[in-house]
Every structure is written in C-alpha cells, then in structure tokens.
C-alpha cells in the first residue's frame, strides 16, 4: 500500500500544518512516512509545495516525481496546476476555489488564467476531482487562515484512507490553544462541504 500526497499553495495558507497532520496520521497507522517541504525562502507569498509519502514499504526519495501522486491538494488554483503533472491521472485532486494573483498579475504584466480554463485543464488531466470554496467558508467562520483545516475536513471525506475521528483529533492536538475550537469547527464544516452520492 502506498499513498503519495502533494499539497500546493501560497506561503501563509497553512500547507505545513496540513502536511504535519497527514504525516502524523500515517505514522499513527504504523506506515512509513517521508516527505519534504519546498518553501522557497520566505514565510509568505511564495509558491509552497509539501510532499508526503506514505507506504508500508521502504521509501527512498522525500520527493514525489511525475505521475506518482495519488492525491493532489490545491489550496490555490494556479499553484495546483503548477504541480498537476506530479499527479497520477488516475488519482484524485481537491482544489480550493481561491485565486491569489501573482505580483506580475497585479501589475497587469502577466495573465492569471480564468477559472473555467483552469478547471477544464484539470478535468482533462484527471477525472477525479473536487472543487470547494474552502477559503470562503473559512472567512465566513471567522478566519481565512482556517482554509487548511477546512481542506483537511474535505480531504477526509474524499479519500477513504483517512479516518474522520482520528484526523479531527490530530487537528485539535496540533492547534494552538486559542485556535483549537475554531479549527475543529472548520474541519467539521469542511467535511460537510463535500457531497458524495
């Protein structure tokens, strides 16, 4: 059994917290876990990718290579598309419908592709995907920084590998005291966002 997960986003969106929770979950399940963060050089604003490799066998490279990922989590449109070729076309993606324009986009010097164009390209690449308004929900719940826990909630619904109660427990355990209640709420609401028939 193996589960390769890539989480993509913009610095500040909480990739690292999400990857920590996923890694701990897999560790608790007695799997091998190895991963890496490519966080560039800054806390925020840059492109951030977390690789999490879970397996019952030996894992060598901490990085997932082309076509190997079973699950691709996009906290932001363009950042997911930047790394979509890591995803096995038979895998699953989970996208937060959030656009964070780049500096050159803001300056009017570069085009940020339209949502429909992006979604078409994603659907063409991989048939199994979910697009959710996680940031909008997080903002409604009081803090856009809860996007990551909303995404984790949705992820648990989408991927049978993850157990709702155990991941929820880890979200709580890894949150600072002041944010525990809100983060657990965000996780629960994220779970409800996904409707699977």
């Amino acid at each position, binding site marked *: 059994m193996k589960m390769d997960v890539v989480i993509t986003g913009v610095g500040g969106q909480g990739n690292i917290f999400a990857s920590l929770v996923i890694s701990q979950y897999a560790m608790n399940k007695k799997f091998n876990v190895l991963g890496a963060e490519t966080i560039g050089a800054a806390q925020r604003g840059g492109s951030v990718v977390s690789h999490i490799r879970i397996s019952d066998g030996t894992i060598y490279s901490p*990085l997932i290579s082309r076509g190997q990922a079973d699950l691709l989590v996009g906290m932001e449109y363009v950042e997911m598309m930047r790394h979509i070729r890591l995803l096995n076309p038979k895998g699953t993606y989970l996208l937060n419908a959030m656009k964070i324009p780049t500096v050159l986009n*803001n300056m009017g010097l570069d085009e940020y592709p339209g949502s429909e164009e992006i979604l078409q390209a994603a659907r063409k690449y991989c048939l199994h995907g979910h697009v959710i308004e996680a940031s909008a929900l997080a903002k409604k719940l009081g803090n856009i920084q809860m996007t990551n826990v909303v995404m984790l909630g949705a992820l648990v619904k989408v991927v049978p590998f993850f157990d709702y109660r155990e991941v929820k427990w880890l979200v709580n355990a890894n949150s600072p005291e002041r944010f525990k209640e809100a983060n657990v709420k965000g996780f629960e609401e994220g779970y409800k966002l996904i409707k699977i028939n």
Partner: protein
Amino acid sequence: MHVNFTGIRGGLVLISADDPGGLSSQNEEDTRILVHQYAHLPIFDPCSPQEAKAMVKEAFDLSERTELVFCLRPVTRVCHARGIIEFEDLPKDLPVAHYEPDRERFIMSAVEMPKFGGLKRPQIRHRWLNEKQLLLQGIMEESAYNWIEKGEGKIGLVGCGMGYTLIKEAEQYLDQRLPLLKLGTLPLPRKKIKGFVQGLERVVIFEETEPFVEGLFKRIFQEEKIEVEVLGRSGFVPAEGELNLQVILDTLSKAAPRVKLTQPQVPTLDLHIPIRTRTQCVGCNYRGILNALKQTVRKHKGIVAGDIGCHDAGSFRPMELQSTIYCMGSSVPMGSGMVLAGVNRPVFAFIGDSTFYHNGILGLMNAANNKINVNVILGENTVTAMTGFQPHPGTGVTLAGEKTTPVNVPKLAESLGISYRVVNPYDIKQCREALEAAVKEEGPSLIVSSMPCYLLSTRRGQKVFEPREIRVDPERCNGCMICINDFGCPAISINKDQKKVSIDSMICVGCALCADVCKRGAIS
C-alpha cells in the same frame, strides 16, 4: 581555518548544509571542497534524515577518538525532509567537562618548536594532520555508510549521499539492477572502490554538486592503474543544479542504453502558469518603510544596498528598491564601500534586526568609526521572521526561551556617536521625514523602523494595527499604479481594461498603509 591543524579534545562536529539548485539560498556551492580538499577534514554525506542522525552521533564518537573535527554535509533534501527518526537512549554517566592546557597545540602561532629542531608550529601541526589521513582511511574502509549492492552488467553506479537515494528511487523504473556503490564518507574507502570496479567497464557517479568524488575516483584509478571509464558531473551528468529522478533516468538512458526505462507517462498541460515571486506578507510593516524609502530614493537619486531577510523582496518587482543583496550583514559595508569609492549620491543600507545582530553590527561600527556617510535603516521586527521566528539578541528571549535583556539600539547608537531616529513603519509620513533628515545630515545615521512582525503578532493574538475595511473609490482612482508599483501589496491589483485598481477583500488584512500611499485619496 586553524582547528583542522590543532585538532580538538572532546568532540566537535561541524554541520554545513549545501543547497543544490539554489532552492532557498544565495549560492550553489559545495562544502566538500572547502572542508575536505582544503582543510583535510573528514566528511559524512547523509542520504536520508535517519542516516544524518546516525552520522552525527558517530561523528562525535570519531571526533573524540581521532581528535579531528568531523563534518556533516547534508543537502536541502535531507535538511528539509520530514520523516520517521528512531532515537536511541541518551548515554548515561557522561564525563564532566574539564580543560587541560596544551599550549603546543592550542596556541596557533608561528613559534619555533625546539622539540622539532626549531621548525615552526604550523608546519608541525600540518604534519600531524597529514599523518591522521591514514587513520581516517582505515576508519572509512570499515564505515557502515559505504556499501556495495550487487547487480548485472559492466556499468556500475555510484551514489553519494542523496545521489544514492535517487538511484534507489529510479530502480523501480529500470528492468534490471545495475551494480551500485553507496558512498557516504570522505576520505573515500579506496579498497571498497577497487573491489567494486572489478569487472566493470564504466562507472557513473551521482553526487551533489561538484564533480568532487569523480575527481577522486580518477586519481585513485590513475594511481592504481585501473582502466575503467568514470562519468559524472564534469559534464556527462549536468554540472549545475540539483539531482532529481529525471536527471538520474536521463543520464542512465545515455550511460546504459540497454537498460529499459518504464517511467509513467502523464498528459501534457496546455495552460499558462504565471510565475510567482515571493513578497512580504499582506500587512507586513516592512512595506511601509520600504515605500517611504522608495519615495526618498527617487527624490534624491539614492542607492540602496540590501541584505538578507523578509525585506529583501523589496528588490524584486514591483518595488525594485535594493540594488545589491549578498550575504548576511553585507548591506552596511557595501553601502560604505560605495560612499568611499566616491559615488556622489545618497547611499542607504537596509538591514533587518536579526541580520544586524548576526553580522551587520560590525559594518555599522566601522561606518561610525570612519565617519562614512551611509544612511542605515534597521528594520526592527524583533524576531528572525523569515526562517520561522527564532529569537535574536534584540528579542529579549534566550534560545531556550528564558527572558533576557534585549540590546538597546538607541543606546548602542549613542555609544557609537551616530544620530538615530526611531520610526513607526505603519506611519509612512514619519518614515519619510526621518529619511529626509538623514539624507541632509553628513556622516553615518541610523533609522530604527520598529514594530513587531505582523505574522508573529497575529499568531500570538497581539495587534500591531487596528484593522479596518479598505475600499477603493473608483471615481477617484485614475489607475496611476503608485499603490502597486511603489508598494506592491498582493491584495491590490489593476484592472487593465478599466484602468482602476481593486482590493481583494479575501486577501486584505486592513493595515491601511495603502490609504497613505495613494496620493489621490482613492483608497480609504
């Protein structure tokens, strides 16, 4: 470097990380050349976080045994990896530290040694270091970090550190196993290498980053009269950049064309992906002082020497403010150098507080001592924000988290005899006035732009400004782009068709700095 000549008592392990590919640092250099070739010290090159952990312990043990400094040289993919590490129990009954004077070793000076017929001490210590190399070679021959994995054919692979890991990753896509030598030590295990290459016609070496082991192989083969072709990073494998699975597979298809590759194919993507350069956080106080500096620099045709830290993104588009960025603490000396060289323009040096305490303080002292007319701006956010909020001497907290006395910068400036002005970076007008005054003044000056890091404060539930809802009045906005080009908050973007800016309420945190940047009062 002296400690290689003196050696040590107890154990000393030097950890120097390299960043192949320049993923998050200023250069793509190879520590092994400096530490092994130049200083003749042994190195461990880990292939995984777990091996790095084991190597540190062994390096300490061996350092104590050999009296030599040992070096661990992990690359980015080891340092930034997250994995399961198995710990052992801590050793019990550790000896109590004591110091035994040994002036013949630990006073490194060009003094005559009567015992050695009057030869100078550095030469005798050099002899000592050279004699240690035989001992090291014996140790590395037996090391658990070098091993051979059997395979078919006459083409052998050599994986050093992360190079080994990537070869193992690649094996799943190959239809046969090639003989593989895993290396994790310098000096190299010469006998093991000789055994490995028996019957081979060619070896391909994967190492980060310079063709260093490759060069040592060629030397060994020449000395041992071994006729095996050596290929590696002197050109056969790309000579720059990070090794990755693709590099390994592409190289193997050239070096061993008979081996079949079965890498998964994925569809191509027909979509324009904009490049994302980093910037300061939305709400960051640096944006206020950088904007004030940008205005001042434009007015007076100034030059800004930059430094390492969150503020360095001010050198990228759209601000394009700092003209130089080198290593930590380089801003003030470079600015000083420009002044001394006779650049007849106002010169500024922008440095963050963590970098200032690390090394920048010396540059300021030198500028003060030599009365160099450089205007230093200290971005005092009271923490090492860029790398994850480590404390520094201005934080008031020790590394262990205990309270301590922070450096008092105004008192420091007073003792240096230079003028200083403390400003609030969320008050652009105040910053502008202080910068104007500094430009007009002869001699070195210091502006302390003081406000805790927004990101850390927010995490701690502390407010550095009163957030408010920010709106653009489209009637007043004329699309002049000042709020974008001279400020560059990620929440503000231009609509090219309407020639109006808008603020994304999902991204904006309400610091209201942009309202002060807009000259037309269109943002409030």
